């Protein structure tokens, strides 16, 4: 049997996102040359929320993009099944921007490696920051996040999932044991 444990409920969820938005502004000293990019799937609504908060606090426009990293995966030839490809939409130049990559869970780091490769194909950002809602450890690549909603020590026999109102009808982070 799987045992679910909720480690972040909707209230904590919102507070974490607010703090992450503030940290992004603090790090970048405002919204000058800032761009936010959400990684599909759950990084996208997360990026949208952070974008809304950042724009509200600074009362300005921050470009927001969507990145699908499927074509940059390192396991594309190893998987039996082709992952479904969704659209990438970055309708602005990344040259000289401070790009904040946003994703839900930071785990092995492979997604972020792929995302950085993809970003470089779009231009030459001044710098790339990484913001994640949950860092669960177990990195396989030398990558770390700049802004973290919650540090979570997890075992490899556990699945950490972020659920979002926009996709899963609820805001929470849960840990469950997997066989």
């Amino acid at each position: 049997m799987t045992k679910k444990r909720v480690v972040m409920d909707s209230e904590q969820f919102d507070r974490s996102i607010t703090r992450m938005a503030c940290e992004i502004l603090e790090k970048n000293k405002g919204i000058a040359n800032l761009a936010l990019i959400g990684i599909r799937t759950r990084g996208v609504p997360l990026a949208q929320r952070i974008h809304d908060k950042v724009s509200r606090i600074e009362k300005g426009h921050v470009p927001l993009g969507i990145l699908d990293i499927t074509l940059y995966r390192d396991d594309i030839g190893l998987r039996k099944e082709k992952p479904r490809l969704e659209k990438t939409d970055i309708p602005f130049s990344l040259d000289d921007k401070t790009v904040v990559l946003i994703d839900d869970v930071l785990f092995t780091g492979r997604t972020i490696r792929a995302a950085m490769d993809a970003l470089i194909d779009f231009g030459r950002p001044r710098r790339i920051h990484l913001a994640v809602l949950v860092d669960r450890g177990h990195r396989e690549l030398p990558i770390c996040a700049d802004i973290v909603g919650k540090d979570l020590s997890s075992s490899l026999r556990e699945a950490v999932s972020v659920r979002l109102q926009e996709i899963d009808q609820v805001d929470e982070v849960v840990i469950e044991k997997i066989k």
Partner: protein
Amino acid sequence: MKWNKKDILGIKELSPDEIQFILDTADSFVEISTRDIKKVPTLRGKTIINFFVEASTRTRTSFEIAGKRLSADTVNISPSSSSLVKGETLLDTARNLEAMSSDIVVIRHHASGVPHMIAKHTRSSIINAGDGTHEHPTQALLDMMTIQSEKGSISGLKIAIVGDIFHSRVARSNILGMTKMGADVHVAGPATMLPPFVDQWGVSVHTHMDDAIRNADVIMMLRIQTERENQNIFPSLREYSRYYCLNSDKVKLARQDVMVMHPGPMNRGVEISSDVADGVHSVILKQVAYGIALRMALLYLLAGETK
């Protein structure tokens, strides 16, 4: 949806769900061709062989560009430079290509059924890029992609296909695909250019072009193969164009937002007038652009596991 086809041989072999899946995947590839760096590393180390026994520029170039934008290695073989002229059988040539560990072979041949025969005898994925008068599935898929992108969906549209239906593999694949996707398909051409029993393909058949294109959402003109002028299927190009050329007067019969398509190469002044080909309704060059994304999607879906 789970993709589990090894080859793309024809529209006949594809289900409506599979067609929709291909079109949706292709849609995500459009954006890559708009980047400054039009390349993704997805098919690094894969080998794609373009084996075109029949002449082609557009389709071959399109496949080559699609492969290169996915970082695959693409190799072209044309009939004059292949060992076929030295008497090697087709199957031997295909087995040799496989021995060079090709992952995908794109084949065009003047005989119907050649890609199917080769697919049975090789482990490489085969894509039919046109076989005789049989099928040209990638053209039909890019045509459907163009319609879906510009019109939102294919289902329920009135689509007229005009010209030499009998000899056209583009028409055959499109009729199969568009009827599967729920379009109301009308074909028109002189009786000598309509295949026997074409009415059993689920389309409406007309010998008067006006009946087919009246209130149409999409008009697809087919290339008249001028080399067939001596085969007694039409008296003269001049007479053909008098009755079956899409000019601006004819376009007025269709809906105001009609979309004019042509698979190319066009005979300007024969099946389509220049003012229509270059006019506001024409999506002929968009078809070419969508063709790259569509073929990238097919290569992506077919390229198998490394191990």
